[in-house]
């Protein structure tokens, strides 16, 4: 039971953190509950589909379908996160003003909700498909008695994942609102950079990216990225205990591009510039 619990929990941490962040970021935006829960629902449905058709996906593109699929949906998440940050750099102030004037629920943020819903769906789909496969394996393979206890372990693992969401959300909303935007911008940029380097890892595995393949360091002895803390940092800041040089390059490049675009699109200062 404990084994199943740990395996499932390990897989749902990433999705749990991302859902928590998405909820904190969209706090006060009208209708966010529908978007986030919609994202989770689509993700769960997608995860079951992926689980059911994993053989077809694997066989696609001369055997690298799995890698390309993972890299593809990770790229979608990266673009949506970048888009969110850029959008907030431009409209964050309007939202803050409207929030002060109109109380809690504002409508201004609706256009960024869709992007975050997609990010949530991707996170749930990716981690969820592994959970679905694992639980499916348990259900069909174990002796009748042990299947039940393994399943219970799996369900507790899922519940712990939801707890991670609650913790993340609870922690973030404690941050005073004038700092919240700054904190979440950094958080989302790091999240995006981490997901981008995960996409690189899949493309390297598929032999699509062959440039700069050398391992930069091995810190698995200090902090393994399969440990719970390692997993959390893996999601939050893209920590890897054995990154390739290319992963690092893309990580830095993603951060730089997001920072650049945020600056480019930033809301002009109150005094209109002469441009």
């Amino acid at each position, binding site marked *: 039971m404990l084994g199943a619990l740990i395996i499932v929990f390990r897989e749902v941490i990433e999705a749990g953190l991302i859902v928590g962040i998405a909820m904190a970021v969209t706090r006060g935006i009208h209708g966010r509950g529908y978007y986030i829960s919609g994202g989770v629902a689509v993700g769960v449905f997608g995860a079951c589909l992926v689980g059911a058709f*994993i053989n077809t996906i694997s066989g696609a593109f001369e055997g690298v379908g799995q890698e390309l699929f993972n890299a593809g949906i990770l790229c979608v998440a990266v673009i949506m996160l970048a888009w969110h940050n850029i959008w907030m750099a431009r409209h964050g102030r309007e939202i803050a003003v409207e929030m002060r004037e109109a109380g809690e629920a504002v409508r201004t943020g609706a256009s960024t909700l869709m992007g975050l819903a997609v990010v949530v769906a991707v996170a749930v789909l990716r981690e969820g498909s*592994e959970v679905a496969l694992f639980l499916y*394996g348990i259900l069909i393979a174990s002796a009748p008695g042990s299947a039940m206890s393994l399943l219970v372990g799996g369900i507790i693992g899922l519940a712990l994942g939801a707890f991670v969401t609650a913790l993340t959300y609870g922690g973030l909303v404690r941050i005073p609102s004038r700092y919240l935007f700054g904190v979440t911008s950094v958080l989302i940029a790091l999240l995006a950079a981490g997901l981008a380097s995960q996409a690189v890892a899949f493309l390297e595995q598929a032999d699509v990216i*062959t440039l700069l393949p050398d391992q930069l360091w091995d810190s698995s002895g200090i902090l393994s990225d399969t440990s719970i803390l390692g997993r959390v940092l893996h999601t939050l800041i893209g920590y890897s205990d054995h990154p390739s040089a290319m992963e690092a390059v893309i990580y830095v490049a993603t951060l730089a591009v997001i920072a650049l675009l945020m600056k480019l699109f930033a809301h002009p200062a109150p005094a209109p510039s002469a441009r």
Partner: protein
Amino acid sequence: MKQHYTNSHRFRALALSLFLLCGVTTFSQPAVSQEAAIVKLTLKNHRFDPAEPHAPANKPFTIEVSNLDGTPAEFESKTLRVEKVVAANGTISLQMRALAPGRYRFFDDYHEDTTEGFLVVQ
């Protein structure tokens, strides 16, 4: 007018991102597959056979994993930098780049307790 300015900015930014993305994919070309060695592994009753396969050092090769169990597995190795689901009764193959000599640990992520194996590269 302001709207127009904003959109052109956005367009430029999008173009820049796409350009960067294309740069990465065009500069990195798929490795030419030579008549490389194939390391064949089977997974049965959540055990790898052979548990200590060998592969030649310093040249690319292929790993083929066949899952003979009725449950899905995930072939994973930190040091080989691979992570791939193998469906029940399914087979996957992985194109490996040239590796330095050494022992590389691999396992099925869903049954790590019984599935440890080592790829001996020499």
